[in-house]
C-alpha cells in the first residue's frame, strides 16, 4: 500500500525533474543536458559504479560491510584482461568474475570465519588487490613472455581478443533512427524524452544490458525468493535466522563471494570499455559504488539512482564543461519551486488560520531559499565558465548536495557490520 504510493511519488518526481531539466535546456541552449550522447555516456560511466554498488548491496544485506570492493574490482580487471587476451570476451567475463569472487572469498574467510572487523579486512583487501595484480603483471607480462609479445606491459594486458556485440532498437535508435531525428529537433520535452530514450538504446553493449538486468534480478532474488529472505535475515538478525535452522555462515559466504564477483564484473566492464586491462583503471570506483549503495538506502533502485546521478554528472562534465554552469540555474529553479510550494501552503485557505501560522523557522528557510535562488541565478548569469578544476568535481559535489537535501531516512541492515558467531548472541 505505502509501497505503491512511494513508487508513484518517485515517478512523479522523475517526471517533474525531466520537465525542469527540459525547461533549463531550452532556456540555456545546452542540448547536451538531455542528448542521447550524454545519456549514453552516463550509462557507460554509471554501470561500473552500479556493479560495485550491487556488490556492496549483496554483502551488506547479508550483514558484511564490504569496503574492499575497490580491491576486488582491481582483481576483476586484471583477471579479465588476462582471461580476455587468451580466450576472448567470454574468457574475460569468467576470469574477471572469478578474480573478484576470490577477493570476496578472502573477505568472507576473514570476516565470517575469523570474525575480523569488516573494515579492517576490506582495507587489507584494498592493499592486496593492487599488490597482487602488480605482482602478477611483473611475473606474467614481462618482456619475453608470450603475453609480452602480444602487447602486454607491466601496467597493461594484451588486448582482449574479439568483440562484444552491441544492440540498437530497430527503427527507433538505428536505421531510420526516429528517436535521433526527434532529438535533433530540440523541441521542448519531446526531444528530451527522445534523447533519453535513444541514449539508453543506441549502440548498447551486451554487457551494459547484462549489468542493467542485474538490478531487477538482484531485487527479485533478494526480495522474492527464499534464498533472498534468508540472506537479508542474516543482515537483520542472524541469531533469529540461526534459531530457525538457517545456516548463516553459508549464507554470508555465498553473499560475500557474490559481492566480490559483482565487483569483479564491474572490473570486467572497465576492461571491455578499454579493450584491455590498464593498471589503475578502477580509479576508486569501488568506493564510489559503496557510496552509491548507501545513497540508495541499501536498495537496488536507490543505488541505480545514485550511480545514474554520478554517471550523468561525470558524463556531462566530460562532454560539455560549460553545461555544468546550468546546474546553477537548475538549482535556482528548484529553489523557486520549493518557495512556490511553501507559499501555496501558506495561502491555502482550507486550513484553520492558526494552524497554518508558520514558525520563524519556516520563514528563515524560505528566506534562505529565496536568497539561494537569487545567488545561484546571479552565478549563472555572471560565470562564463568555471575553472576546469571545479568542473571535475561536479559529480562529487552533486552527490553531497543531494545527500544534504534528501534528509536522510537511510536505514541500513540492522546487523550490518556486526561480527556474528554461531551460538553467541548478545
Amino acid at each position, binding site marked *: 500500500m505505502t509501497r505503491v504510493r512511494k513508487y508513484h511519488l518517485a515517478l512523479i518526481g522523475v517526471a517533474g525533474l525531466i520537465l525542469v531539466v527540459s525547461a533549463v535546456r531550452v532556456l540555456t541552449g545546452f542540448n547536451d543536458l538531455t542528448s542521447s550522447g550524454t545519456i549514453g555516456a552516463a550509462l557507460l560511466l554509471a554501470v561500473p559504479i552500479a556493479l560495485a554498488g550491487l556488490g556492496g548491496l549483496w554483502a551488506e544485506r547479508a550483514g558484511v560491510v564490504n*569496503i574492499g570492493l575497490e580491491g576486488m574490482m582491481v582483481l576483476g580487471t586484471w583477471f579479465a584482461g588476462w582471461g580476455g587476451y587468451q580466450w576472448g570476451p567470454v574468457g574475460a567475463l569468467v576470469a574477471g568474475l572469478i578474480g573478484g569472487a576470490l577477493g570476496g572469498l*578472502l573477505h568472507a574467510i*576473514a570476516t565470517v570465519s*575469523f*570474525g*575480523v*572487523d569488516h*573494515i*579492517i*579486512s576490506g*582495507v*587489507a*583487501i*584494498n*592493499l*592486496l588487490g*593492487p*599488490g*597482487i595484480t*602488480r*605482482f602478477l603483471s*611483473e*611475473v606474467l607480462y614481462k618482456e619475453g613472455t608470450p603475453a609480452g609479445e602480444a602487447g602486454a606491459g607491466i601496467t597493461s594486458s594484451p588486448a582482449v581478443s574479439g568483440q562484444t556485440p552491441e544492440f540498437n532498437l530497430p527503427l527507433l535508435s538505428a536505421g531510420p533512427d526516429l528517436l535521433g531525428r526527434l532529438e535533433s529537433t530540440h523541441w521542448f520535452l519531446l526531444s528530451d524524452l527522445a534523447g533519453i530514450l535513444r541514449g539508453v538504446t543506441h549502440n548498447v553493449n551486451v554487457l551494459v544490458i547484462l549489468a542493467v538486468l542485474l538490478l531487477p534480478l538482484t531485487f527479485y532474488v533478494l526480495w522474492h525468493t527464499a534464498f533472498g529472505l534468508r540472506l537479508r535475515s542474516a543482515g537483520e538478525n542472524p541469531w533469529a535466522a540461526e534459531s530457525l535452522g538457517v545456516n548463516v555462515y553459508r549464507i554470508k559466504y555465498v553473499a560475500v563471494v557474490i559481492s566480490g564477483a559483482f565487483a569483479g564484473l564491474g572490473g570486467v566492464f572497465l576492461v571491455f570499455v578499454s579493450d584491455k586491462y590498464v593498471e589503475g583503471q578502477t580509479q*576508486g570506483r569501488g*568506493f*564510489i559504488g*559503496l*557510496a552509491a549503495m*548507501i*545513497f540508495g538506502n541499501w536498495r537496488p533502485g536507490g543505488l541505480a539512482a545514485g550511480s545514474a546521478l554520478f554517471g550523468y554528472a561525470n558524463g556531462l562534465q566530460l562532454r560539455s564543461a560549460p553545461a555544468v554552469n546550468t546546474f546553477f540555474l537548475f538549482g535556482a529553479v528548484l529553489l523557486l519551486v520549493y518557495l512556490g510550494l511553501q507559499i501555496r501552503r501558506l495561502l491555502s485557505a482550507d486550513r484553520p488560520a492558526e494552524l497554518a501560522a508558520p514558525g520563524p523557522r519556516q520563514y528563515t528557510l524560505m528566506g534562505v531559499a529565496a536568497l539561494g535562488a537569487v545567488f545561484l541565478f546571479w552565478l549563472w548569469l555572471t560565470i562564463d565558465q568555471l*575553472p576546469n*578544476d*571545479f568542473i*571535475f*568535481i561536479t559529480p*562529487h*559535489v552533486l*552527490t*553531497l548536495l543531494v*545527500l*544534504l537535501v534528501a*534528509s*536522510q531516512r*537511510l536505514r541500513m541492515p540492522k546487523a550490518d557490520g556486526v561480527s556474528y558467531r554461531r551460538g553467541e548472541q548478545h
Partner: protein
Amino acid sequence: MPAGLNRALLTVAGAAVAVVLAIAICSVAIVIAGGSPLDALAAFFDFGRSESAESNSVAVFLNRAVPLFIAGLAVAVGFRMNLFNIGVEGQYRVAALCAAYVGSTFTAPAPIQIGVIILVAAAVGGLYALIPAVMKVTRGVNEVISTIMLNYIAIAVSAYLVRGPFAGERAQGQLTTTTPPLPPSGMFPDLNFVFEWFGMVAPTRNGGLWGFLIVAVVLGVVIWLVLERTRFGFNIKASGLNGPAALASGVNPKTMVIAAMVLSGGIAGLIGLPEILGDRGAFGSNFTAGLGFLGIAVALLGRNKPLGIAVAALLFAFLDRAQGALQFADIPASVVTIIQGAIVLLVVVANEVTNRIALRLEERRAAQQLGRNTPVEVAA
C-alpha cells in the same frame, strides 16, 4: 596483573605468528616468480654497503614512518568512536597546501615560523574535517560517503590553488608547479646528530633525519594521554563502544562527532608537514599522495592505539624502504604491498583468535572466583 599480562603476551605472540605467516606467503610468491626468498629477506635488511648509505637508509626508514604514524593517529581518533574518517587523504592535502603557502608569505624566527605553519596545517585540516562532521550532525549524511567525495574535491581544489592563487614562481624548464619556497626559518632542523650518538655518520640525504619526528613523538604521547587518560578520551571510547549508553551517560553525540572529527582532521593536517618542513620546502601538485589511505591500514594494524600505531608505522616504513633494494635483487617490488596487506589481514585474524582465547581465560577466572563466592581484592 596476570590477566592483562596474559592478554599482552597472547597479542604479541599472535602478531609474531601472523608476520611469519605473511612472510611465508610472500616467499611462496617469490619462489613462483622465480626469485629466492632468502635474497628478498636479505634485501629487507640490506641498508647499503657504505656508512653513508646505511645512515641514509635509516633516515629514509624513519622519515617514512613519521607521516604514516601521524596518519594512523588521525584515522584512529575517528575510528575509536566508530567514526569512519576516510577523508584523511583530502584533509592532509588541503592542509599541507595551505600551510606551505602561508608559511611562505612571511618570515619570522624559526620557532614562530614553524609554529604558525603547524597551527595553520592543523586548523585547515580540522576545518576541512568539520564539513563532513557538520553534514553528519545536522543532516545525518553518512561520513563514509561525504569524506570519500571530499577527497576528490580536495584534489581538485588544491590543484586549482597550487596553480592559481597559491602558485610560486617556476624555474625555466620545470614542469611542476609548487607554492613559493619556505624561508630557511621555516625548515625544521634535522636530527642528524642522533646518528653520532650511535657512532654512525650523519645521513647525507637532503633533509637528513627529519626533525618533525620529535613533533610526531610528542603528538603520539599527547594523543595517548587524551585518549586514555582524559574525560574527553573516555567519552570518545564510550561513544565508540556503546553509543546509546554514552548518550544516556550525558555525552552529547553531536558534540563528540564534531570534536572527534575536527581532532582527527587537525592531526591529519600535519601529515604533509614532515616532508614539507624536512625536505621539500613547498607543496607541489605531485606531492606524496595516498598517505591517508595507508593511515587507515596503519591505524587498524595498530589497533587504534598510539603505541600500536607507532609499531605499525615503523613496520610499514621498514617494508617500504626495501622497494629499491628488492629491485637490486631482481625481485618484484610489489611483494612489499602484498606483505603489507597480508600482515594487516593476518595480524587481525591472529588478534581475533588470541582475543577469544584471552576472553575465555578471563571468563574462566571470573567464573572460578564466582564459584568460590568470595569477593577478591583489586587486581592492579
